[in-house]
């Protein structure tokens, strides 16, 4: 009985300590008048957002601090609907449920999804049909598409990834699955595929093996791997804009306009302005205007 009282006092004082700490922090922020915009979401959009943040802080308002977290599209969207973040970065479309909860999407850039292979692989071009057949496991050897003799190993992003969803949609790797009275869109990606949860891992797989093929966002491309053209077109600004390069998708922001503060609005306007879009092109992506 004696030390239960002691614990009570200890816990109480701990609580007070914690709460005092919190309230102090809030006060400080108020005094300094530092405006904070919290951005969370897709790991694919993150590198672009990082550049846009630097641009905004340099060219517009150095008193605004933009905090970016790479949490994945879904977590980012969730944090906006919960009011933890102001802006979510997403590489996938919002679901109906998310739209109903008051979120809207803003297109900020176009992204080409590129097929990558090992530098020693002599293939340079694949048709959309070949891509579909390779990823669904119908074509299993490189010599069927004019390459060396070797079993093709397909690498995909993980379930739920925006890049995977867009890739499947753009290359027709979706199939309808009817269950009861509901229709779902299933994936046709080969049962033998490897799955990785970031572009870096896919690049390092491809870098080490001549037989592997994967897909990544154009912003993640570097010299360690070889980019394929699709139907004879390389992924470039003009080929994406006029639709000749077919595997491209938009990058979006998701916001809740009902409780969006002025600072966040200004940041979004900056992204859509000429200056912002210049940064988009400079980062390797394709501008929207």
């Amino acid at each position: 009985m004696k030390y239960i009282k002691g614990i009570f006092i200890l816990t109480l004082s701990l609580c007070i300590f914690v709460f005092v700490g919190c309230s102090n922090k809030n006060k400080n922020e108020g005094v300094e008048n530092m405006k904070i915009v919290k951005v969370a979401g897709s790991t694919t959009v993150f590198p672009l957002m990082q550049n846009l943040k630097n641009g905004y802080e340099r060219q517009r308002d150095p008193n605004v601090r933009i905090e970016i977290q790479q949490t994945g599209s879904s977590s980012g969207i969730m944090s906006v609907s919960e009011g933890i973040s102001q802006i979510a970065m997403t590489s996938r479309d919002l679901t109906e449920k998310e739209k109903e909860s008051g979120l809207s999407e803003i297109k900020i850039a176009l992204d080409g999804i590129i097929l990558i292979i090992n530098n020693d692989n002599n293939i340079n071009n694949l048709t959309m049909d070949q891509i579909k057949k390779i990823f669904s496991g119908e074509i299993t050897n490189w010599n069927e598409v004019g390459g060396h003799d070797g079993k093709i190993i397909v690498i995909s992003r993980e379930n739920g990834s925006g890049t995977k969803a867009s890739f499947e949609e753009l290359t027709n790797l979706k199939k309808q699955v009817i269950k009861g009275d509901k229709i779902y869109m299933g994936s046709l990606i080969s049962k033998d595929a490897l799955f990785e949860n970031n572009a870096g891992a896919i690049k390092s797989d491809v870098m080490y093996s001549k037989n592997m093929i994967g897909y990544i966002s154009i912003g993640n491309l570097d010299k360690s791997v070889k980019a394929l053209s699709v139907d004879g077109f390389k992924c470039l600004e003009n080929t994406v804009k006029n639709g000749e390069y077919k595997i491209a998708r938009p990058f979006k922001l998701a916001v809740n306009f009902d409780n969006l503060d002025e600072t966040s609005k200004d940041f979004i306007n900056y992204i859509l302005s000429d200056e912002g879009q210049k940064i988009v092109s400079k980062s390797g992506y394709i501008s929207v205007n």
Partner: protein
Amino acid sequence: MGKKFEFLAKSLFFACALTSVFSLFLIILYIFSNGVPAIFKIGVFKFLFGTVWEPDIMEFGILPFIVTTIISTIVAFFIGSRIGKWCAIYLSFFCPRKSYKIIKTIVELLSGVPSIIYGFFGLVIVTPFIRENFGGPGKSLLAVIIILSVMILPTIINLSETAIKAVPKSYYEGALALGCNKTEAVFNVVVPAARSGINSAYILGIGRAVGETTAVILVAGNNPNMPTSLLSPVKTLTTGIGMEMSYAADLAREALFSIGVILFIIIIFLNISLIFINRKED
């Protein structure tokens, strides 16, 4: 004054003890309240024995993950426990003093290596080796087993050695006096006497193998289907969560918590079985 101090100290320590108990309860509460409803939404049987994991079409079968986890853990444990136990025996009885220090330091260093480094080692050395010599994509069940066997070594070695050293010297000397040679004395008298400590070493090793995520993600290939051979790319329970947590939404997200529930139950089961095994042997 003395009494008051005593009382204060006592309550401080009690509060600390309470913190760990409290955090365990919070974790259980959080994982179960998020995960259990989804299991029933999916259907207990469909969840545990379904072989298709495709959140896009609302298929959440985790049997392949469970099978992979069990196979990789058992095989890795079989390899790691043999090497680990014999290494501990060597360290405590057969090792010259000079090399003892070196080996012991290396083993301790091994236990401090972050798991991502093991994973990187697997990615750069083990998976290309498998790909070039056995075929397949390299990222495979075999790679997982190899990495896990190495990862559980330091846990098993360190704890077994402590257990073996804790056996009173008189057991060993008594055995020698009765005419045993050194090997017989060690294997027939000292090691059986250290059994309960070695068992805890095993269980903690298994726990580590079941729970390892970071390293496994890098070498497993993360394919959600049932493994058909040692060379198939696989997905374990932990990597199932680790791979998809950042992008999953709605029921897919809850299903990941459900996997957490299953993992939690496995770990609890392991710990309880340890208590029973040790009690039986006492």
